[in-house]
């Protein structure tokens, strides 16, 4: 099979079987490409196929949220009005992290101490991928309830789509405190870290760190790790379970991009990385493509349209108007060509399994009708 065949083959496969069969569907891609929209449309498709479905959205646009009946950021599934079998919820990042701490802490006092720690409070914004990790953590919760046949999750806009895959390891590595564990013995007064550490021959490390961050930061940090002591193994175990769920063949990753080079490049990296990690790739959605010429105009090539426009220009008002239309048609064909080329280049030599192009709609996507339209394209209906 040549890559060209692969692309054509992928183009013919839609996401229908994914939507009808997979248990977990993750929508990912770079910022603003349509992850939330795709997640909602996919969930709608699963619900319409009679599966008990929930979509876990992250920071949806206000009007989309309203259409889904979401008004508050509270981690509570709510039934979507007008669609049977469909629940939706908005991820509360902070709340989810707190739940994780509550779950793993041996007693409420310790949990409270961690949650009050200044370092903890900024951890989710400081450690790349923590937000992604919380989304998958919540997903695992929903999975455990057994209430849903299909769980669709959205991912936050990230610098790097790979953060989603790297997050569990990064987080557990950090919490494990590779360097720190050696230095910060439990019960050690925070103020004395530097001295004690020096005794371990680690003075330079702590000295450098405290020069950069100031002592206050290190004290917060020390307190955080002291409180976290003993929770680490459970935490790591849980992260591994989450990762395994994502890796299982009942899960599916849908990568979303726009037909522009930067978004497609990101998508390509991600597809490659999914393959490397043995993750179940389901397909690439290229969203917001310039709609192809409608039937009846597909036989009019750009060059001929431009020539005709040139011939008509300068004539009657009608002729000038039609010349403008012909030019518009030719321009759109040009963009379509650019987009096709971008897509083919991004997929050169890799098989995305399915490839769906979703046209740019006439307006923003915010109600159930709009979502239904996108859903139908995704499923190939």
């Amino acid at each position: 099979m040549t890559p060209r065949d692969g692309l054509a083959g992928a183009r013919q496969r839609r996401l229908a079987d994914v939507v009808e069969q997979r248990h977990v569907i993750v929508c990912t891609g770079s910022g603003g490409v349509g992850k939330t929209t795709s997640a909602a449309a996919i969930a709608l498709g699963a619900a319409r196929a009679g599966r008990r479905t929930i979509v876990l959205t992250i920071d949806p646009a206000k009007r989309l949220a309203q259409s889904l009946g979401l008004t508050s950021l509270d981690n509570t599934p709510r039934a979507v009005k007008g669609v049977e079998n469909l629940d939706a919820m908005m991820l509360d990042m902070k709340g989810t992290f707190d739940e994780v701490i509550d779950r793993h802490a041996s007693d409420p006092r310790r949990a409270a101490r961690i949650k009050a720690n200044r370092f903890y409070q900024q951890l989710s914004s400081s450690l790349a991928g923590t937000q992604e990790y919380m989304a998958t953590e919540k997903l695992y919760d929903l999975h455990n309830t057994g209430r849903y046949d299909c769980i669709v999750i959205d991912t936050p806009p990230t610098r790097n789509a790979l953060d989603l895959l790297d997050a569990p390891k990064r987080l557990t590595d950090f919490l494990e405190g590779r360097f720190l564990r050696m230095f910060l013995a439990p019960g050690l007064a925070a103020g004395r870290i530097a001295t004690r550490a020096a005794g371990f021959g680690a003075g330079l490390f702590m000295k450098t760190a405290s020069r950069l961050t100031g002592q206050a930061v290190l004290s917060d940090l020390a307190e955080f790790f002291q409180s976290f002591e003993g929770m680490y193994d459970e935490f790591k175990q849980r992260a591994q379970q989450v990762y395994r769920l994502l890796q299982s063949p009942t899960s599916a990753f849908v990568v979303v991009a726009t037909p522009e080079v930067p978004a497609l490049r990101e998508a390509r990296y991600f597809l490659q990385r999914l393959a490397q990690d043995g993750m179940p790739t389901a397909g690439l959605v290229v969203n917001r493509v310039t709609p192809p010429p409608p039937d009846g105009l597909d036989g009019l090539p750009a060059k001929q349209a431009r020539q005709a426009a040139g011939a008509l220009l300068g004539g009657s008002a009608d002729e000038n108007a039609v010349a403008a239309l012909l030019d518009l048609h030719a321009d759109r064909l040009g963009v379509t060509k650019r987009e096709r080329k971008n897509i083919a280049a991004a997929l050169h030599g890799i098989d995305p399994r399915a490839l769906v192009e979703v046209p740019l709609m006439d307006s923003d996507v915010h109600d159930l009708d709009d979502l239904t339209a996108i859903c139908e394209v995704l499923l190939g209906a």
Partner: protein
Amino acid sequence: MELENLLDPRLIIVTGKGGVGKSTVAASLALAAAGTGRRTCLVEVEGRQTFSRLFSTQTWDFSEREFRPGLWGLSVDADASLREYLEMFYGARRLSRIVTNSSAVEFATTAAPGIKDVLLIGKVKEVERRRDPDGRFHYDLIVLDAPPTGRIVNFLRAPDATTELVNIGPIRDQAQSVIDMLLDPQRTNVHLVTLLEEMPVQETIDSARALDEVGVTLGPVVVNRVLSPRFDDTTRKAFEGLDVAATQRVVAKADVELTDQGAEALLRIGTLHLHRLELQERMRGILSRRLRLPLLELPYLWDEHFGADELAHLAEVVEESL
């Protein structure tokens, strides 16, 4: 703030929602500035090599390169910025003892993430302050392709947050001088890039408010990918009077044959175009009512490729608005 003063600050920070064209706009502004004779430096902070790809140059790194006459390129990262800064602060010899421990640096920047951003902007500040032997500034203008709106507030607030946390030492000094640069309206302007679509417009309005609170001065809003009208009043009226048969008759004069379906489709393209223009007009109205900042509009380019030529074209549009 007037459009003609667009390129007058010493540092222009370009931000906007993901994918709206921040890098495109940053590159176009930089090209335009170089075109006006300003010695200009275009800076990327996320190490994505966006510009070296767009301009087909060698990979960019921590040392500036002149890739167009009068236009330099620089890619800054936190590690190199830190090393350079400490070298200045402590001198090279003591430095080697301090920073060979790079895991300490990594650790510190995770513990207090703002530090990384302070270091990045710190490097930009060094470039901005740099003087030639004759006492003049080395660069007239620095254009920064900054993180997207979702992260920009934390990025620009990092120096402030850091001075709260860290009360002594080199990082604190660095943070303070960075704040001085960012908050000086003569030195720094933030340009928001947006599209004439609902979400980006909403996000722009929200970000403008948040950036106001940070205290930075906003420059013009750069509206990217603007569709220009294809009809004037006369042809628009003519278009509205066209039906399938008339359309077929007109195209036949230019030797094009269209089926009924084809003629209908051609007319629909016109309707869609007018619909888009209406949406644009509505969004433009919302933007100017809510923000009271001048708008710099850049056209949507229909070319089959998007590369250096397209950037040059957009730079011309920028220059014309000066």
